[in-house]
């Protein structure tokens, strides 16, 4: 595709429910990144994929968060038993190769946990 796409664009859920956020990177980009942006704050790194592998999961805030990537393409970020503090915009980015290259961002998913 022309750019990084994410779905849904907005998600409202009740506390305790699970949510899945999807990211479609630019075709051919081997690296994929997930970030979280709380209201009025900068971007917080969550996890990145090199191909289908996630070498660094240290940014995931808790064990309720998990992510996977298949076919060196689509990635899914799953948040289990959502809490109100999970409310944020979740941004996905991809880059042609891993390390130091320009990252192209998707439009994000705004998650609201009631």
């Amino acid at each position, binding site marked *: 595709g022309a750019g990084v796409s994410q779905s849904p664009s907005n998600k409202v859920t009740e506390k305790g429910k699970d949510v899945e956020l999807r990211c479609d990177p630019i075709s051919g980009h081997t*690296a994929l990144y997930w970030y979280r942006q709380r209201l009025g704050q900068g971007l*917080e790194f969550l996890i*990145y994929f090199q191909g289908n592998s996630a070498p660094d999961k240290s940014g995931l805030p808790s064990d309720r968060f998990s992510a996977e990537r298949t076919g060196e393409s689509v990635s899914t970020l799953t948040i289990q038993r959502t809490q109100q503090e999970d409310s944020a915009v979740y*941004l996905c980015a991809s880059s042609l190769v891993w*390390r*130091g290259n320009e*990252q192209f961002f998707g439009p994000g998913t705004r998650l609201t946990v009631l």
Partner: protein
Amino acid sequence: EDKVVQSPLSLVVHEGDTVTLNCSYEVTNFRSLLWYKQEKKAPTFLFMLTSSGIEKKSGRLSSILDKKELFSILNITATQTGDSAIYLCADSSNTGKLIFGQGTTLQVKP
């Protein structure tokens, strides 16, 4: 712990003014510094800097990196209302992930 600090946090100017945004960093195994502009959701790429003292320029925007003093500046000349946005600075280390600053919110009034 890797850290990126931007200043000021917010800025209000009038059209035609020149602004300078600051970014200081402490990053292990520094590779590059990047500037992004965020208007609604998706940050859009502005510059990537890897070498000290070499100015990168794109229209009215320019940026430079000082690897000795560990900072970068982003200059915008002859500001326009369309420049109103959050400007994000980020460092890329050998791990590949970007460490972002908290951003500078720029408002350009007509």
